[in-house]
């Protein structure tokens, strides 16, 4: 009975995390297409949420990596195992709330992985961590992917300008606005293939601990796939309305060809990585593409401060969220090995989140995509 209650809490927490992931990332996925006026905002947001949903079904390799390739499921067993997963999720949510509050461009994906590693080490020790998996599947791809996207978008825009440079601007702008319909769709699809699957992997790990799924699973159960896809799609749709209201304050200055190149580069890098099971920070990749397309045209057009913040976030997120995950696991254990700890921590984090959102709403300084994935 206690294990069923903890499982319900873990599922609810994971889906809430997935919802906020979509909510924050809407800006990254649709902002470029909206700012170049390629797609009307309402259509862009609806389009993005539908394709995020569809993307979650395309490939399940990232879910397998998160579920089996970072911590050994054999050590995540019973109520204690589910509490580890819960503590990892809360550690990630706490870090996301903190970075959202301070306006740091953190990565939800890295926070999730850091939180899980931290809570596992606190509970079981380092023997349960797959160090090679962490290095090979998370850290190295995390370093390569944004740089790759920067290079791909940079080369693409140079090639595009070389081809269409002597054509009248009118047809070129119209052509690339039309092309952005395709690249924005692909980017939304790619976002679903990578980010929704992280939640699926976490849920699969919790189900393994609960005993409802074998540790050698190849795919999460269908209800996990559908619920994770729905949560991220709903988050994307909800997050979009906030962006439409405040879009005028945060315009990304780029032409339609740059938007096309950056979105296309982001989509192909994320899709290729998803195919090989690499969970990436989609925000870092998309920002890499935007900066690459900007830098290839004019170095000064790039907001290099954003690049600096991303590097700081890279360095901080994994250890900070790991510390958070470990601390949350310690707090839950104060209340014993049963269901009391997760319930108390859930209530506390919910109160903290409501207070932070209420205070931010009162001050009227809500940031868009402050803590993206």
């Amino acid at each position, binding site marked *: 009975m206690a294990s069923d209650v903890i499982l319900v809490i873990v599922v609810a927490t994971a889906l809430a995390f997935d919802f906020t992931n979509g909510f924050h990332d809407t800006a990254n996925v649709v902002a470029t297409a909206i700012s170049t006026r390629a797609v009307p905002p309402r259509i862009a947001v609806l389009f993005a949420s539908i394709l995020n949903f569809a993307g979650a079904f*395309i*490939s399940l390799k990232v879910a397998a990596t998160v579920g089996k390739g970072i911590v050994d499921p054999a050590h995540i067993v019973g109520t204690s195992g589910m509490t580890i997963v819960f503590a990892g999720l809360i550690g990630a949510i706490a870090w996301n709330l903190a970075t959202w509050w301070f306006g740091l461009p953190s990565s939800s994906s890295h926070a999730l992985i850091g939180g899980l590693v931290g809570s596992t080490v606190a509970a079981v020790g380092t023997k349960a961590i797959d*160090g*090679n998996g962490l*290095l*090979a599947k998370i850290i*190295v*791809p995390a370093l*390569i*992917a944004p740089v*790759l*996207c920067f*290079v*791909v*978008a940079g*080369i*693409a*825009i140079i*090639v*595009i300008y070389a*081809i*269409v440079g002597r*054509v*009248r601007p*009118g*047809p*070129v702008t119209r*052509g*690339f606005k039309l*092309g952005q319909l*395709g690249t924005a769709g*692909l980017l939304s*699809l790619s976002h679903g*293939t990578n980010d929704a699957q992280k939640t699926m992997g976490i849920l699969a790990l919790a189900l393994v601990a609960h005993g409802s799924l074998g540790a050698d699973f190849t795919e999460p159960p269908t209800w996990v796939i559908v619920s994770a896809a729905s949560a991220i799609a709903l988050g994307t749709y909800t997050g979009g309305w906030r962006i439409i209201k405040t879009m005028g304050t945060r315009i990304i200055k780029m032409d339609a*060809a740059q938007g*096309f*190149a950056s979105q*296309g*580069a982001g989509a*192909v*890098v994320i*899709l*290729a*990585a*998803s*195919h*090989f099971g*690499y969970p990436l920070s989609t925000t870092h990749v998309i920002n890499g593409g935007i900066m690459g397309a900007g830098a290839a045209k004019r170095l000064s057009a790039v907001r290099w401060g954003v690049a600096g913040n991303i590097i700081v976030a890279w360095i901080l997120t994994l250890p900070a969220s790991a510390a958070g995950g470990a601390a949350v696991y310690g707090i839950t254990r104060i209340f014993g090995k049963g269901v009391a700890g997760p319930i108390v921590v859930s209530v506390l984090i919910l109160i903290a989140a409501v207070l932070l959102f209420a205070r931010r709403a009162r001050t009227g300084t809500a940031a868009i995509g402050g803590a993206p994935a």
Partner: protein
Amino acid sequence: MRILADPVVDWSALGKVVLYSLIAGVGVPAVYACAVLGAGRSSDAARAHRNGAATFYALLALIGTAACIGAIVYGIVLLTQKS
């Protein structure tokens, strides 16, 4: 833990991610740019009553657009296949 020599990091898979990203991320935009070039030049040629050039550029635009759509569909089909 040897990173470069040992298969701790699957450099082959990462290399494929880099290669596919470069091919698709540069190739498809380049082909689409040819389609945009074709569309722009085709309307200019039609306005100047150069029917041969207009037809040629219109074909370029059509083929470029079709090639891009084909590449995207092929990519998605590849992704959905379980290896």
